């Protein structure tokens, strides 16, 4: 399969620290590919290298078969970039934001206007076309930034934390639009630390930690590989959950003690819950749920806060 983004041993070093420490990545045409990881994992540095605004320190990077060190502008002509922080022109109108940006790609004015109208329709901002950007809500601004990233009909769209800071309604609308793009065959590359976002959108993803890739695969495959099928969450009334940990020994593949609850990683949640009852441990509450990407993520990158 054709690899639109191809990285081998990709490294980004800044003075005194290594942000990306030798990663291998292949993104294929038409897929939605995710970079997951805690803050400081190297996701944004990787995205900036792919966006051709940050030259790699070492390693191989090919985008659409071209070398970003040499062909930056040529590659950027075929990319759409939705940065982490909106950098819209707050004093221009919504439509002008799209038309002026289109000009940077050498798109004729008439075509730019027509495309702007289509894109505003796509991100459901047609009614706000002539309003200024400043009073728009966070969700609207983000949709406009996405529309702006599409103005050159890019082959790859880079989205750096596309829904961070949005309310649930706004997030779902953005997801739905991105899903539509994927259906149209646009290759999406996104970073996120929302696990539900990754599960919703990504065909394949890598988990980064400390500048390296620590896991790779589809969301389903990662859950199968790094977690169990189900998780039982037990809360005990006692002050310390610790005391119960050893009484639960042998109940699952893995057991995790948190300040307020104990997590049991098991294949069959109901069976494990029944066993807990049988041992008459009487937890205050029992919750059986499916394992999620979040469990994988926390397992791989730890629960300690990084920033």
């Amino acid at each position: 399969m054709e690899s639109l983004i191809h990285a081998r041993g990709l490294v980004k070093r800044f003075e005194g620290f290594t942000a990306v420490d030798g990663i291998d990545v292949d993104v294929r045409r038409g897929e939605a590919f995710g970079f997951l990881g805690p803050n400081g994992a190297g996701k944004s540095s990787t995205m900036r290298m792919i966006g051709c605004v940050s030259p790699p320190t070492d390693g191989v990077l090919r985008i659409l078969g071209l070398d970003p060190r040499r062909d930056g502008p040529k590659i950027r002509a075929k990319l759409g970039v939705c940065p982490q922080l909106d950098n819209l022109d707050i004093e221009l109108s919504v439509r002008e934001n799209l038309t002026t940006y289109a000009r940077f790609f050498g798109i004729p004015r008439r075509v730019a206007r027509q495309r702007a109208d289509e894109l505003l329709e796509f991100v459901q901002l047609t009614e706000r076309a002539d309003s200024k950007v400043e009073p728009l809500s966070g969700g609207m601004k983000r949709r406009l930034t996405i529309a702006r990233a599409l103005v050159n009909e890019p082959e790859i769209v880079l989205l750096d934390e596309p829904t961070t800071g949005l309310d649930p309604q706004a997030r779902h609308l953005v997801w739905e639009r991105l899903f539509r793009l994927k259906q149209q065959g646009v290759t999406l590359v996104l970073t996120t630390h929302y696990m539900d976002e990754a599960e919703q959108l990504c065909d394949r993803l890598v988990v980064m930690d400390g500048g390296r890739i620590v896991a790779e695969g589809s969301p389903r495959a990662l859950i199968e590989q790094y977690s169990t099928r189900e998780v039982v969450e037990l809360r005990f009334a006692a002050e310390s959950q610790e005391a119960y940990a050893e009484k639960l020994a042998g109940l699952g593949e893995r057991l995790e003690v948190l300040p307020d609850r104990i997590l049991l990683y098991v294949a069959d949640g109901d069976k494990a819950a029944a066993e807990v009852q049988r041992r008459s441990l009487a937890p205050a509450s029992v919750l059986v749920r499916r394992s999620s990407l979040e469990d994988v993520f926390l397992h791989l990158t730890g629960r300690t806060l990084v920033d």
Partner: protein
Amino acid sequence: MVAGAYVLEYHLVNYRRTWRSSALSTLVLPLLTMLGFGVGVGSYVSGGVEGAPYLDWIVPGLIASTAVQTAIGEATWPVLSYFEWLKVYFAQAAAPLRVADILGGHLAFMAFRVLTAAAAFLVVAAVFGTIHSWWAPLTLVVSVLTGLAVAAPSVAYSSSISSDSYLAILMRFAVLPMSLFSGVFFPVESLPVVLRWAAYVLPLWHGVDLSRDAMLGLAPGWIGLLHVVYLLIWCVAGWAVAHRCFRRRLVV
């Protein structure tokens, strides 16, 4: 080159929003300075300066000074905010533009602003009957050159700072003395030697002298050529440093 023109176009679209209010001040400001200095102060200056009536003598200096003020205005806060707050340059860097396009397009817009401000001043000056030479329109070329000689290094400065308190330093210790001691209001020869050298080193005096030659119809001579070369050096050096600063921030 073409891509730089797209950037210029962006700045012009952006300017379309505010041009009315800025056009008013570009016309009112020269009018007030002409009345205040030319007519007001001028009535105390009997016998004129260097053989010209004070009003005629001061207007070319005011045009060059206006060019510099406009250039400074465009090359400081907007540049800082395009990096720090509005992130306009970063959005441009994600498009297929090179650093030179982003910088060049913005400088071209600054040249445009300088040109319109100088032209407005020239029109007001004509109304006051201070134009006595067919060479007067050349003042506009001088203004653009002087404006860029100040704008390019100012852009470099603005792109290497992260807080606007540094701009206040620039205004107080560079722009203000330059405006006062560059032969705009009185000949630099009346300054003590040290300050005279400040005028010679900074760009404005060279523009003032050239502008005065054009407006009064005097032959600039070989020193005129030196002025032009010296201003070009400021432009080129300013560009080189600004390009480095832009690169350091946009391509990391």
